[in-house]
């Protein structure tokens, strides 16, 4: 379980994130949604201890993220940020191998190699494993990063807009991969999503943020309600019962 209590980060006297009190259940996919500037990514990076907070505390599986040594946390949470443009030229397999760093400190064991291969297969990257990252398409590269995070083999996985720059096909595939990771591997995945319909379809829980505060939290059925969505996104939104489930219509 991820617990945030009175988490606060102040930018200017007017702009602040929080105070946020939130409990994210163990297991499944929890989607963070909300308009631009609501603080979704900030919250995610604070949970992943990439950014400090001004007040409050965050615990992940009982570990206080601001007090637990980074090395220990790396075995419990992994976080993938939105922008990953590396100057470094690595192959897919080398990148995924870095996921094992918290466990093996850089000297890969046979067991590590097995987990790396597993993560690569899980995201169907087998044929690409010896290609350099800069030779891949955006979708393939994104998959490689997710494979790396999976190889890190943490119970909690935080992903900041992993669908960015992906086309429809790759977005759907990515969400299916993540869904499988949650169900088959038992991961707790927290993911920042832009498209409410992806959240509605694939997430087990949706947490809506606005102006740095949690405004709604619940199952997709509870959140995918016209009044709730319209209020969150400042746009008139209808919800229709489509052939494959609830759909938000905002055009």
């Amino acid at each position, binding site marked *: 379980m991820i617990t945030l209590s009175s988490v606060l980060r102040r930018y200017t006297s007017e702009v602040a994130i929080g105070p946020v009190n939130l409990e994210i259940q163990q297991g499944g996919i929890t989607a963070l949604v909300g308009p631009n500037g609501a603080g979704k990514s900030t919250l995610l990076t604070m949970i992943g201890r*990439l950014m400090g907070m001004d007040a409050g505390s965050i615990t992940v599986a009982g570990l206080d993220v601001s007090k637990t040594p*980074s090395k220990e946390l790396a075995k419990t949470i992994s976080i993938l940020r939105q922008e990953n443009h590396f100057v470094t030229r*690595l192959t897919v397999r080398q990148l995924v191998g*870095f996921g094992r760093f918290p466990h093996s400190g850089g000297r890969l064991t046979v067991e590590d190699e097995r987990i790396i291969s597993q993560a690569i297969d899980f995201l169907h990257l087998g044929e690409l494993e010896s290609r350099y990252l800069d030779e891949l398409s955006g979708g393939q590269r994104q998959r490689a990063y997710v494979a790396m995070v999976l190889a*890190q083999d943490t119970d909690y996985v935080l992903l900041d807009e992993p669908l960015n720059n992906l086309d429809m096909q790759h977005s759907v595939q990515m969400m299916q991969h993540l869904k499988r990771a949650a169900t088959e591997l038992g991961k707790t995945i927290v993911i920042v999503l832009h498209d409410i319909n992806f959240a509605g379809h694939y997430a087990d829980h949706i947490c809506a943020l606005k102006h740095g505060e949690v405004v709604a939290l619940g199952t997709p059925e509870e959140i995918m309600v016209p009044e709730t969505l319209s209020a969150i996104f400042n746009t008139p939104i209808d919800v229709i019962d489509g052939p494959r489930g609830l759909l938000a219509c905002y055009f």
Partner: protein
Amino acid sequence: MVVGLLVVGGLVVASLFVGQYDIFGAEDGAQMFAITRIPRTIALVLAGAAMAMCGLVMQMITQNRFVEPTTTGTTEWAGLGLLLVMIVAPGSPLVVKMIVAVITAFIGTSIFFAFLQRITLRSSVIVPIVGIMLGAVVGAVSTFIALQTDMLQSLGIWFAGSFTGIIQGKYEPLLVVIVVVVAVFVAADRFTAAGLGEEFSTNIGLDYRAVVLLGTGLIAIATGIVTVVVGNLPFLGLIVPNIVSMFRGDDLRSNLPWVALTGIALVTVCDLLGRTIIAPFEVPVSLILAVVGAVVFIALIVRRS
């Protein structure tokens, strides 16, 4: 790898046997061989490997392909330290000169990294420009001090990197860079991770600042020592890692032997050229490196854009 080793081995042997003094014919040939040729060749190997590897580590830490100790002011800082020792305590032993040069190189490199963190526009060309500007400022300060104290000529001689004066009794401090080389090998993965960014490093549980500090320290030690013993070896750390990266990507651990070998090969070739083109005189190796390096540097920038 075997081919690479053979080529470098051949160059090293060539370096042992090229020179004006007839080591086979003359009576004291064997002695001369031990006094000049062996030290010179060891120095070539150590300096070449160390500077090339330093360039690589620096490129990882800054996430920029165009930096190395001579394009970031590190060598100029080491030179400034050296000059200060020559003025304040002219008779100091080599060890003192080295330590001071290492300290100033460390300070200078830290200043460069601190500068980088404040620059928002970290495009690939801006970073080395900042470094070169910093280096130019420090170099100008050195020149001014040297002018005031009549040291300009000594400074010039020190700076023109050359293996001519490397004889028995003068090259031994270079052995310290072996420690640096080993340390870089051991920490290779950390530097690669640092090259992937602060957030990436933190995610896998690495202390990014500690890695940067370690890298800066190692670079300063190697640059300081090489500058004091040999002088300025421009562009070496720039060309070698870039060439290796083009062929083999950037996994530091598997690349390091290649970077070391290519560095050794390049310095040795340049030194052999320097020894032969105007024999019986010598051209400083830094001159040849600068010519070769400048061409490759421009080619790299053109290729990128």
